[in-house]
């Protein structure tokens, strides 16, 4: 396949950026999207030109590093699929493809397609944990957890922290991300003790980092490669109200 790419190029946070047109030639439909960019980059390097900078690591859809908006959709057209797992057979020969970075106020751009997502780490640092010490905890089976609760916790815990939800949201909100961690821990007995405080400090951190609020567009759920559901946002809101009533 041959493709016509429009790729966001920007030297650094303060430089001007623009979409640069380039060709991807002789692309196999079995390649992943990132392998397609690898090929383009190899050619650029051989010509002495700077390759496209992009974030990636595991290339199996779990580390949450890869982050590209493809034709306007974070992680591209295939549902529940990260860019690294997207394959070229989802495109047609001759297609034009627009490749851009995550765009959100809380994610300053570093270079080309790479942005700074450390704000998400700081939301977790605010309180996305149980305050247990290393050692000195009860036997694992001393805490019984009804299977439905364990399943909800696991559904929420699948979040890979990629930030696609933020990039998809017109408000640049990190509600889906935050609610997933709140839900995971609030669904488990070992997380209940700190549930009220947790939801307060995490939402506060979220707002302090410059993420917007949720106004129910649900774009986040549509973009999420792991199928994290907006019902968790409702859960966060319930936890938040509960925390303020008690």
């Amino acid at each position: 396949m041959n493709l016509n790419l429009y790729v966001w190029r920007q030297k650094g946070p303060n430089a001007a950026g623009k979409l640069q047109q380039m060709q991807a030639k002789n692309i196999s439909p079995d390649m992943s999207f990132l392998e397609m960019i690898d090929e383009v980059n190899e050619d650029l390097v051989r010509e002495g030109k700077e390759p496209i900078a992009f974030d990636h690591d595991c290339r199996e859809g779990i580390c949450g590093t890869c982050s590209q908006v493809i034709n306007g959709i974070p992680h591209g057209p295939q549902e529940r699929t990260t860019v690294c797992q997207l394959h070229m057979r989802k495109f047609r020969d001759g297609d034009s493809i627009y490749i851009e970075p995550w765009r959100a106020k809380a994610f300053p751009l570093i270079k080309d397609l790479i942005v700074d997502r450390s704000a998400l780490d700081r939301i977790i640092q605010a309180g996305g944990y149980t305050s247990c010490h290393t050692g000195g905890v009860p036997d694992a089976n001393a805490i019984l957890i009804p299977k439905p609760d364990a399943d909800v916790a696991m559904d929420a815990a699948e979040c890979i922290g990629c930030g696609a939800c933020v990039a998809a949201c017109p408000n640049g909100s990190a509600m889906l991300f935050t609610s997933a961690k709140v839900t995971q821990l609030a669904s488990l007995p070992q997380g209940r003790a700190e549930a009220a405080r947790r939801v307060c400090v995490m939402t506060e951190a979220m707002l302090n980092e410059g993420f917007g609020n949720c106004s129910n567009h649900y774009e986040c759920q549509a973009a999420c490669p792991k199928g994290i559901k907006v019902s968790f946002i409702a859960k966060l809101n319930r936890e938040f109200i509960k925390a303020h009533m008690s």
Partner: protein
Amino acid sequence: MILDGKCPSGPLAQKWDNHRQDMKLVNPANKRKYRIIVVGTGLAGASAAASLGELGYNVDAFCYQDSSRRAHSIAAQGGINAAKNYPNDGDSIFRLFYDTIKGGDFRSREANVYRLAQVSNSIIDQCVAQGVPFARDYAGYLDNRSFGGAQVARTFYARGQTGQQLLLGAYSALSRQVKAGTVKVHTRTEMLDLVVVDGEAKGITVRDLVTGQVGCYAADAVCLCTGGYVNVYYLSTNAQGCNVTANYRAYKKGAFFANPCYTQIHPTCIPVSGEHQSKLTLMSESLRNDGRVWVPLKKGDKRPPHEIPENDRDYYLERKYPSFGNLAPRDISSRAAKEACDDGRGVGPGGFGVYLDFSDAIKRLGDDKIRERYGNLFEMYERITDENAYKQPMRIYPALHYAMGGLWVDYNLQSNLPGLFVLGEANFSDHGANRLGASALMQGLADGYFVIPYTIANYLAMTRPGAVTTNHPEFDKSRQDIENQIKKLLSINGRKTAKEFHRELGKVMWEHVGMERSEQSLKRAIEIIPGIREEFWKNVRVTGSGAELNQELERAGRIADFLEFGELLARDALNRNESCGGHFRVEFQMPDGEAKRDDENFSYVAAWEFKGVDQTPEIHKEPLVFENVHLGIRSYK
């Protein structure tokens, strides 16, 4: 030199307890005077940094990713072992210990492995307290499954994402310490050198991957938790950034590298689809619990799988290893797959694949049960291959996966360089010549949560806090060396990309130092690799500058180290005139093709000392002594 593993004396089951009594402690009020560097934030690094921070030490943690949560531990799928014996099926600490020693083909240290089995139960408790959502049954109890090579169900799991969940647990503990101010995490920062002062590890030199700035950090001790090196083979199940650089630079500064030739090839990966392939994707071997491995009985049988009747199929693992069947250990399963394909019975494009068939399990349990167990793996398989494994068998092929070898450490996880501790996959200590499934996660967390907090104190108690600062000339020298290397890489301006060299090296490694090795193939590799290295330093093209985010430069630096390390790996393989675990030498096999160990001559750890880039490294040996197990033939028949 004969190396001493410093295993405590006394009966096996009491060694760790006794040792904990004997070790020195650091007074609580003094802990904050010490600074510890932890490189790596995977299971080993995150658990270590969090636990040390909680104890009151000042910790600087480093990772090359943009967040500590993205270390490659995240990708582990199958599960984590522990000797809880919740299913009451006969497990015990001794059995886990024995299985691990036997699985490692009797090439690991008894005392280390026993300690690992002992602390395994605390790991599960710790993770549950953190909110790790392990699988549970309807009564609310934890569920277990049996996993590659084990006859008891001792594996805890969280769907197909156990590594992710354990890492997020450790990351949450780490985040709590960041908030508490005891740990500072330096993301997008790559360690490029170890700084050694008067024979002791006292700091590191790093490059800030965003600004390009090269800088130094000093500390009272350094922990390397930098993961495995199998990307030396180019294609592997590791992440793109996994590297040997941190370990290799420490090796060049005097730390011994142990058993580099012990590499694990995983039997269940998605086959290569073409030259463009950048990585190989693992399909968790938990799939082998319900999938049956087969190839056509006849060579060149090109019929689609559902048209091949039972009689024309060879379920070769069930046939050759009746008691373990599809659950035979990784090295054995991998070699059997290669053998079938070399015999012309491989399936799929190129004939480098075997079937992993779920049709019987689906008949027995139904689609839904299979979906519940492996849904995400089946989805991943479909995304990559465009094939539906509920309807047709998966195609799998072995791929490089795990490094049992690593920096040499004693029982305290301390390298021969005092002050340098090595944890997780980066060390060599617990898995011998072959690692059992679900044991790496266990080891990483054991090292970080439950071993290093004790053993590092023993070292620190004997040192004066803050004795060395970055003003020491060794730091300046190290920084200059690194800056010079960067300048050199940028100035070559050749015609080949770093990746082309990596691919070339990978081909040599896979062909000559791969699943089957021979004296001849290894000598060939040792001949070819220096040539590739030489060309690299004359003809590599690295674009951009050093003073900015430059992924080509990062890559070139890592490949430069792989180009030296590959040779060391081959030399170690050549030295080891026996077959054991993941190291298979064609000259040393039983009449039936099984690995033939030589306990008389090779029951030792080979620890290599760097002598110069084009010099032969010097071997040091640590004899392995077995007092509690009988060195059996590792039979899985």
